[in-house]
């Protein structure tokens, strides 16, 4: 995304949502007409544990400025334990990205249930603001993918 002097920086954010809770939560936000920025683009996955760190890096490579991963609340996973594995994997991955000096606010995990449309919208608003503050992703981008 481009920073334009007279136009506010608009980050590109990829949101991975599990089919059973968070994707349904996003649907509920829609049903209730709860606004959140169009910067958010949702990718549906069966469970948050389907999200490979590779996908997150790929998103950053291709120009995403933030990646958020949403799943069922711990204990509520449709597949019983998927989000527990997600939690460990993402904790370690985010810690590693932080260790490499990548801004920690570019990544996030949130638990959003199918009933939490309001939380989904609020989370997305908040996350978009946080990423906006950071500006464009420069530390983990692939120069060849930078948009002109």
């Amino acid at each position: 995304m481009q920073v334009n002097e007279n136009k506010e920086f608009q980050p590109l954010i990829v949101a991975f949502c599990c089919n059973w809770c968070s994707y349904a939560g996003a649907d509920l936000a829609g049903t209730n007409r709860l606004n959140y920025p169009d910067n958010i683009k949702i990718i549906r996955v069966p469970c948050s544990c389907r999200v490979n760190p590779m996908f997150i890096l790929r998103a950053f490579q291709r120009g995403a400025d933030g990646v958020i991963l949403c799943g069922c609340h711990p204990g509520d996973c449709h597949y019983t334990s998927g989000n527990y594995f997600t939690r460990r994997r993402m904790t370690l991955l985010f810690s590693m990205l932080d260790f490499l000096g990548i801004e920690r606010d570019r990544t996030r995990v949130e638990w959003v249930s199918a009933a939490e449309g309001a939380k989904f919208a609020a989370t997305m608003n908040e996350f978009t603001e946080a990423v906006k503050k950071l500006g464009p992703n420069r530390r983990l981008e692939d120069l060849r993918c930078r948009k002109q």
Partner: protein
Amino acid sequence: MQRIGVFVCHCGTNIAATVDVKAVAEALGREPGVIVSQDYQYMCSESGQNLVKNAIKEHKLTGVVVCSCSPRMHENTFRNAAASAGLNPYLVEIANIREQCSWIHKDIASATEKAIILGKAAVAKVHLNAPLTAGESPVVKRALVIGGGIAGIQTALDIAEAGFDVDIVEKKPTIGGKMAQIDKTFPTLDCAACILTPKMVEASQNEHITIHSYSEVADVKGFVGNFTVTIKKKARFVDETKCTGCGLCTEKCPMKKVPNEFNMGFDNRSAIYIPFAQAVPKVATIDPNNCMMMKTGKCGVCSKVCSAGAIDYKQEDRLIEQQYGAIVVATGFEPIKLDKYDEFAYNQCPDVVTSLELERLMNAAGPNGGTLLRPSDKTHPHKIVFVQCVGSRCDDSKGKPYCSKICCMYTAKHAMLIREKYPDTEVYVFYIDVRTPGKNFDEFYRRAVEQYNVHYIKGMVGKVTPRSDGKIDVQASDLLANEQLHIDADMVVLAAAIEPDKTARPLATMLTTQMDTNDFFTEAHPKLRPVESATAGIFLSGACQGPKDIPETVAQASAAAAKAIVLLVKNSITCNPCVAHSDELMCNGCSSCEKVCPYGAITYIDKEFKMPDRTIAVRRVASVNPAVCQGCGACTVACPSGAMDLNGFSNSQIIAEVDAICK
């Protein structure tokens, strides 16, 4: 070459008011591989679906993208439409431009731009979609019921009545469970034995039911429709097929000082015993820990008196293996141990008893032949104090956080029965709340108060002190009178909390089913699937799922039976095709995927591979059972080599979506 059709829905004005649907259709029409791109008022309508179907036929489409509402709403609609037009249903993708676009954005330009991006992601994904076929797996027409209490018996009877074979596995020598120990049942006060024992007999005589008493489940393998269960038949040292249940051995057995579990230890039984008169199967069992013959090799009286020649001191535990299509868990409950409640003096004073013990003390078949006597001195108690919620509703380490649900009612029952039979006995009930939500339950409780003059006192007993004169000092608060009471009681009855049977947790591990922190089995959905576990083919019956009274248990038992029958009537079950699969050439056989699979769907086989140098190498590789896999994808990330992938949500598909979104 892909031939993809894009269909953009207006959803009336739901989408069209905020998203320029024409522009979306036009933009997506320019995407590679898209040969037709249309918009329509209502895609999900009959004519909308026909539009899709006709386009599939006319343009020989290889993939369909519908830009419409959430896939959770109409994915199946469009998949079915595609299937009816001859396109594999899994070649359909939905771009959610309503819930996740038009409904949340106001600006037409940016909403349209986003809708196009979402559409492009779906097009990119559908390029990589593979036709999937739902597999089928056969169903073994036999059910296993674990637990032979009223829940297990009812479930087994119902399944048998539908014409399927059922096996009951019961760890005790007889079926009947806790209900067999109960005297009367609320709210009708009919005798438990009178309504239970006919069912026990019915179960034993039903040609479809096999009872494995004194047996345990040792191992469970397999999956819905095809479980292989190993049952351990514990040695009872009596040949079940020969024993007639005459009981002569139990009379002649010289070892008669064994505490009788059935009567809660209030009297004794012999080392060879039949738990109670109506036991099913009515077969004697030798308790090897107390049998002289087993311990010292000297005795053999039972063997001598048994005319059927059924005694076999050399009998050993036996393992039998059986296939089942469905498993119903009915492991029931136990009252909690009260060791941690010193204030109630349960371990100190024999006249402080639990409610289940009181059942036996009052039972006509109990130790006192139905006369209520104090266990300590066998005198008639004139003042009895009941304490509610002992260990229930606790937030501490001693008790359970839940309400045990049945105590309010059985205490009212006990109080009423005592007042009925012994009008000279005063009965006090200390309660926190009286919870009677059930048909005729509150009326029952009110009868105890109004008709039988049971003293219900709102407050809790703080301390129970046995006195040297044989009385028991009960110190309690009366919250409504705002005073502290001291009652000289003759007996104290504690309504101990109930907890799941100790065998439940190891069983849950074997069955790969979920449990909550209290060890109750978790239902697949608390409202809509209350008798199924989250693991397909495993159903829940009775108190193993949560505290329940008899009517509720029976209702759930029949519901679980119905669910099991629904499964058993099928010859085969259709599996979700969106399952994981492993690329054997890349698999390391490292077991990471197996460790994270919640369903035990992954096993390993040693497979021969022809190597480039023409040698043959044997490698351990993962193999996914598509009937068991539910498609979560946990294994795909655990796999370091990327050998494991998920149908419908493959690595390349998700990456294509990421790329399309980030373009």
